[in-house]
C-alpha cells in the first residue's frame, strides 16, 4: 500500500510526513497532484504523446476546469488522475496516496471510496433504478448509506421524484444529475467529470454546472471538470489550458469572456 498519509476526507491533510518522500511536496490544501506525468500511446512510428511531462496540483474544495483543443490530452489526463489508466511515466497522488504503486484491487478500492466520476455519456447502469445507481458505489463497498446526506444530495439535484425510474425513462439532463448524485453521495476526495455537459442543451448544462458549483461552495467538494464551453469554464475557480499534452496556461476566477479571449490567443499563436 503506497498510502503516505491518512487524511479523512474533508479535513485538511497534514503535510510533514510527505517531505522526505516527495520531489515537490504539495501545499497542505492540495488534494490531488500529477508529477511529471507522461502518456505515450503506440510504438515506433505510430507513437502519440498524449501527455508530455505534466505537473499539476488540484486544490481542495475548488472547481477546476480543463480546456484545450480536441486531442490535446484532456481526457487522458483525467483518466490517469482518476486511476482508470496508467501513465507511461510520472506519478499521481490522490489524497496523499501515490497511486502508481497500487495494484488493481487497491486502485478499485481507491476509485470506489475516494473518487467520483461523471462521464459525457453512459453514466448509469440501465437495469438499475436511479436510486440504485446513486447508491451503487456504497452498495458495492457494502457500506451503510448516510441517509441525511443522500437526501441532501437528492433534494439539491431535484431528482427525488425520479428515484424509482430506470435510466431509459430519464432525460439526458436527469441522467446526468443522477450521475452527479452518484459521484457525490459517497463523499469522494475528488470528482472527475469529463465533458459532463457535452451532450446537454444550454439550460440543462447550466443546471448541472450550477449544481457542481454549489457542491463545491456548500459541501466543500473538490471537482475537476473538462469542458469545451467557455461559459461552462466560467463556473470554475480556475481554468487550465492544455495543448499538445502540455499545460500552456491557466486562469484564476475566469469569466466566459476572458476564457474566450485566452483561447483566441492560442489559436492565433498556434497559427503564427
Amino acid at each position, binding site marked *: 500500500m503506497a498510502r503516505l498519509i491518512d487524511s479523512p476526507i474533508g479535513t485538511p491533510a497534514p503535510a510533514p510526513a510527505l517531505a522526505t518522500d516527495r520531489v515537490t511536496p504539495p501545499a497542505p490544501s492540495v488534494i490531488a497532484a500529477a508529477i511529471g506525468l507522461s502518456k505515450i500511446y503506440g510504438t515506433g512510428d505510430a507513437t502519440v504523446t498524449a501527455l508530455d511531462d505534466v505537473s499539476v496540483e488540484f486544490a481542495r474544495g475548488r472547481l477546476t476546469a480543463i480546456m484545450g483543443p480536441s486531442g490535446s490530452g484532456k481526457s487522458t489526463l483525467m483518466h490517469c488522475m482518476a486511476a482508470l489508466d496508467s501513465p507511461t511515466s510520472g506519478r499521481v497522488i490522490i489524497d496523499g496516496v501515490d497511486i502508481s504503486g497500487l495494484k488493481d484491487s487497491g486502485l478499485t478500492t481507491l*476509485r470506489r471510496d475516494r473518487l467520483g466520476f461523471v462521464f459525457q455519456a453512459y453514466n448509469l447502469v440501465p437495469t438499475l433504478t436511479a436510486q440504485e445507481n446513486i447508491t451503487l458505489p456504497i452498495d*458495492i463497498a457494502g457500506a451503510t448509506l448516510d441517509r441525511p446526506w443522500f437526501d441532501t444530495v437528492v433534494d439539491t439535484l431535484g431528482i427525488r421524484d425520479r428515484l424509482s425510474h430506470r435510466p*431509459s425513462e430519464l432525460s439526458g439532463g436527469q441522467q446526468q444529475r443522477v450521475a452527479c448524485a452518484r459521484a457525490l453521495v459517497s463523499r469522494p476526495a475528488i470528482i472527475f467529470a469529463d465533458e459532463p455537459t457535452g451532450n446537454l442543451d444550454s439550460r440543462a448544462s447550466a443546471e448541472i454546472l450550477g449544481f457542481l458549483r454549489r457542491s463545491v461552495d456548500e459541501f466543500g467538494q473538490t471537482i475537476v471538470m473538462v469542458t469545451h464551453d467557455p461559459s461552462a469554464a466560467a463556473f470554475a475557480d480556475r481554468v487550465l489550458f492544455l495543448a499538445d499534452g502540455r499545460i500552456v496556461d491557466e486562469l484564476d476566477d475566469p469569466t466566459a469572456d476572458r476564457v474566450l479571449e485566452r483561447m483566441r490567443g492560442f489559436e492565433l499563436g498556434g497559427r503564427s
Partner: protein
Amino acid sequence: MFRFTLASVRGHLVRFLLTAFSVMLGVSFVAGTFILRDSIDTTLDGLFASASKGVDVVVRGSGETSAIVTGAPRGTVPLALQATLASVPGVARVVPDFQGTAILAGKDGIAVGTGGAPALGFAFRTDDPSFTLVHGRGPTGPGEVAVESVTLAKADLHVGDSTTAVIAGQAHPVTITGEVTFGALFGATAVLVDEATARTAFAPDGTVSTFSITAEPGVTQQALRQSVAAVLPATDEAVTGAAMTAENKSSVAAGLGYLTTFLLAFAGVALFVGSFIIVNTFSMLVAQRTRELALVRAVGASRGQVVRSVLTEAVVIGVVGSALGLGLGLAIAAGAKSLVRVALGTDIVAALPVHPATVLWSVAVGTIVTVGSAVLPARRASRISPVAAMRDDATPPARSLRRRGVVGLAFLAVGAVLLTVSVTRDSPSWPGAAVAAVLAVVGMLVAAPLAARPVVTAVTWPFVALTGVIGRLARQSALRVPRRTAATASALMIGLALVTGVSVIAQSVKASVADVLARELTSDFVLRGASSAGIPASIGPAAAGLPQVQSVTRTSVVGVTVDDVAASAVVTSAAGLADNIVITMRSGPLTALAGDTVLVNQTTATAHGWTVGSVVTAAVGTLTAHRLTIGGVFQDSQALGTEFVVDRSLYDQAVPVSARSDRGVYVRAAPGADLGLLRSQLVTLAKPFLIVSVEDGQEYSDSTAASVDTLLNLLYVLLLFSVIVAVLGIINTLALSIVERTREIGLLRAVGLRRRQLSGVITVEAIATALFGAVLGCLLGLGLGIAMQRGLRSQGLDQLAIPWTTIVTVLVASVVVGVLAAALPSARAVRLDILRAISTEA
C-alpha cells in the same frame, strides 16, 4: 453484401465459433449414429458371409422365422437324416451342427461374462470353415476344449490351463488344448468340444437344429436345395446358404433399426435444444448489430438484402458446424467402438465408413436447423429502420410478453387437461397423450419468459440476501431480456425434463416391481441364471431334494400363439406353485394345470370369451395346431407377467431338449427352517454351474431394480448430450450479453466493483439461468412422468414414486453447470480494460 456478411463473421469470431459449436454437437450425434450403423452393417455382412462360408444348403426343422420375437424355437431334425442327405446327388459333405450352451470358468473361478449374449458351445471339426485354429490343437476327448480367442483372453487363461466348463448344464473339469478365432461373436463366448462329446451333450435326443451341406463343384445352391428338399420329410425344410445369411442378417438388422431410431431420437433432442441456442444467438447478434444494420439500410441496402446477409451468416455457421460435427461424430463412433470392444471384449466394428449419405444428412440437418433458426431473427433485423442508426440507444424496444404468455398458458392448460383425460381413461389413449404432451411442452416453451421474473427472483433470493448488490446486479441482468433468459434456460429445460420424466418412470418401475414382488412372491429364495443360458435343468430337482425345503417351483418360457395373441407363456407345474408365487384364480383351480390344460389370465379370457373348459387351437413351441383346454382363469399377475401358464409336460413335448432351460427356480423353506443354512446349501448346489445366483426376496427385488438403473444410466448418458448443448448455450448467451454490456461493465468497474465481485455477478447470473431451466425442466418432467405412470397403471406400473434424489441432484448440478458456464465469460469480462470498455461503441 456478401463482403459485409463475411466481415461480420470475421469480426465476431468467438460468437461465431460458439454458435457453430452448438450446431456441431447436435450434428455429431446424428453423424455418429449413422457412421456406427453403417459400420455395424458392413461388419455384419462380412460376419455372416464368413459364418456361412462353405455352406450351400441348410436343413432345419419347421417353425417360425422370427423365433427371436416369440421365443419359439424351431423343431429339430433327427441325426439319422445325415445318411439320407449324404446320398443326395451333388452333396459333397453333410455336417450336423451340434450347438448348445457351454460356460467357461475364468482363472478366478467365475464364469466369463457375456453381457447378456449367449455362451455358445460347438463341435470342433477340422473341416469347419467358420473358425480357424490359431494355437494348440483341437479337443479329442471329454476333458478337453478349444476356446475362442476373446473368450480365452477374458478368462485370463492360456492353452494348457485347466478350468471348469459347464457344457449343456453339466459341470466338467477341462483342459484347454487349443485356441480358435471366429469372425465375430458380438460378445458371446465360444467353447469347442470334440464331436463325440458334442453329440452327447448337445444332441441327447438324437436331433440337431440344423445340418450344413456343402455342394460338389459345379452344383448351384438352388439346384442342391431342390434335390435336398426332395428327400426331406414334410416337417423339415431346406434353405440355401445365401437365404440363410440374408435371414440372419435381417433379424439382426431389425434390431439395429430400432437402435438407430432410438439414437436418432436423442440426436433430435440435442438438435432441438441446439436450435434454441441458435435462435438466441442470432437474436442477440441482430440486437447488438442494430446500429450497424441500420447504417447499412441507411446507405441503401434493401430489407431483403439484410435478411439474406443474416441468413448467409447462418449458412456459413451451419455448414462449418456440420462439418465439425461430422468430425466429432466420427470420434464418437470411434469412442463407441472402443467402448463396445471393452464391454464385449471383441471388435464388432471393423472400420468406420463415412458414406456420402452420412455427409449429406449431417450437413443438411445441421444447415437446415441453423438457417431455420435464423429466419425469425433475420426478419427482425430487416425491420430495423434506418433511423435507428442515428439514435443513441439503438436497442429494439422490448415487446410485451402478455400475448406470448396468454398463448403459452393456453397451450399448457389445454395440453395438461388433454393429457389428464388421455391417461386417466380406462384404456389410455397414447396418441392423444403424445399430442397433449407436445402441446404442454410447446406451451411451456412459449410461456417460459413469463415465468422468468418470479422464478429468477426466487432462485436469486439467497444470493441477494448473502451478497447484496452482487446478487441484485445478477438478478437484474438475468431479467433484462426475459425472452433471452427463457430461451437459454429452455435448452436446459428440455434435457432436464426428459431426465426427470425418465427417472419418474424408472423410480415407479422399481417401486412397482418391489411392490409386486412383496405381494406375489412368497418363496424364500430365488435362483437365477446370469445369461441367456438360464439355469441347468438339474438344479431344480436337486434343490427340491434338500432336507429343509418345503417346495420348489421351476419356471421356463415358451412361445404360445393363439389367434392374435402371441405370448411368452410361463411354464411350471402346479405342485408347490402356490407356496412360491401368489396366483389368484378367478375361476377353475390352480391344480387344473396339467398336460394340455392351461391357465389363462383374466384380460385375455374376457377378450376372447374363454371360460373354463374352452378349447383353443394354438402353436406351442415347435408344436403347431395343438389343442389346448382352458383349465382356469387367473387374475392378471405382474409377477408372472404373462397371458398363459402351461404345464411342464407340455413344454417337454414342445421344446427340444437342447433348447430347454429354467428361467427361475423358486425355493420355499419348510416352516422353522434355518434360512442361513439353506442358503449356503443352495449356494453349494449352484456354485458348480458358475452363473447361477441365489437371492432372497429382498436381494431379488434389489437386483431387478439394479437392471432398471443400468438402462437408466444409459439414457442419462444419451441425454447428457442435450445438456452439454444447453450448457454451451448458457456460455454463449453470457458471452454475448457481456459483449453487449461492455460499457456497463466498464462503468461498474470504474465506480469500484472488484474483479471478484464482477465474476460473482456473472456467475450468479449463470446460476440463475441454469436454475430457472432446471426448475421448469423438473416441473415439466414431473408432469409428464406422472402422466405416463398414470397411463401405465394397468400395465403394472401401479406405484408412483417421485425421484427426489434425482430432482435434488438435478438442481444442485444445475448450480454447478451455472458456475462452469460462467467461467469463460467472466474470465473475459474481468479482463476488460475499463477505459476501453467505457468508450466502446455499444
